[in-house]
């Protein structure tokens, strides 16, 4: 199957945290997607996948991007000027929300929060969200999730003030020690190691749950 290639223009680049930024891209008229899906940005030599953080009905396409130290593609995205043109294919992937009678638990590390932002903006509600980051500075989209999640649990793995509103530790610690027993639909997005470890914990502690994952790296 041949993928359609779209062209878009950079409208705005916004800082989200010390290491993360959001790009707003013009939205090609005939491009549609489901919350949780991603696009593949293409240049002459490389291609990189990014999950969309906007709702399907929004007029711009938005990406939440970690500036990877020594990362070649993210360096050029970060340096791109307003009006720069990009090509992309998509939508790709099947990491979409499936509404069932089981409660949904979203687990993200870092920019792995992106697909959940899109789902929340598209009116998905009632979910539990664990967002694992090193520092509270990286809790981008916190306002959105305070307003939309049933339970929003920032998990801070680095040194941070002892504010009680955060879980101190990794998302795995929360899944293992704090998540009430039950049968859930788990959605895991982010680093490989997190996805592996949480999957093992689910097999051990939450059998009969469903698991969907999206690996970023």
């Amino acid at each position, binding site marked *: 199957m041949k993928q359609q290639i779209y062209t878009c223009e950079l409208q705005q680049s916004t800082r989200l945290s010390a290491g993360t930024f959001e790009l707003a891209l013009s939205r090609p008229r005939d491009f549609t997607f489901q919350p949780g899906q991603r696009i593949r940005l293409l240049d002459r030599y490389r291609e990189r996948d990014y999950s969309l953080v906007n709702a399907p009905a929004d007029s711009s396409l938005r990406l939440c991007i970690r500036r990877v130290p020594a990362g070649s593609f993210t360096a050029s995205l970060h340096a791109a000027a307003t009006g720069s043109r990009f090509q992309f294919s998509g939508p790709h992937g099947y990491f979409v929300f*499936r509404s069932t009678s089981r409660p949904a638990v979203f687990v993200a590390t870092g920019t792995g929060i992106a697909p959940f932002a899109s789902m929340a903006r598209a009116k998905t509600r009632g979910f539990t969200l664990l967002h694992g980051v090193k520092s509270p500075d990286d809790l981008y989209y916190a306002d959105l999730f305070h307003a939309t999640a049933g339970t929003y649990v920032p998990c801070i793995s680095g040194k941070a003030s002892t504010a009680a509103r955060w879980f101190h530790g990794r998302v795995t610690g929360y899944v293992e020690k704090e998540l009430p027993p039950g049968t859930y639909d788990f959605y895991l997005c982010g680093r*490989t190691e997190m996805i592996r470890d949480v*999957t093992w914990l689910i097999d051990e502690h939450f059998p009969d749950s469903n*698991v*969907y994952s999206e*690996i970023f790296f």
Partner: protein
Amino acid sequence: MKIYTGGGDRGKTGLFSGERVAKSHLQVEAYGDVDELNSTIGSLAAVLPTKGADIGEQLRLIQSDLLHIGAWLATTPTAQPTALLEEFAADRVGFLENTIDRMEENLHPLSGFILPGGHVSSAAAHVSRTVCRRAERRVVALMEQLGSEQLPESWQQVLRYLNRLSDYLFVLARYCNHLTGVDEPLWKS
């Protein structure tokens, strides 16, 4: 893109519909057989006679169909993610039937049993044919377990497709011997 997480290192795997199941689960066996079939077709394509350029293209289409079938088999039929899958349509069986008919026009009618073998491409097609039959048996067992009345139409088409694909591979095996001028090994009882 990273293809491994290690999440399956302890003997379980995730279905496309999200369930965690043992790797010995019948559903995993079924799409595993289809995957094996796909690989054998890849090795068949690698040894095709040069005259069979159009066969190479057919085999590529069949390999894509098998990936599509794998996705259906990896999805519990009553689960919601079936809505994400593209229908497996009846025209795929039609495609196999047309190519079977075209090849057969060039072949002598069968006068007895043939032994699998001859040209290397013919021998490879027979291996694919037998793996295909095993995949079909496994899908039948799975459909019986799942209760075939409740299955989506695509599952019925998958079953028809695997049945017809074995026929295609049988005729292709003969056709490869024909193209390369190799005598068909006949069974002398």
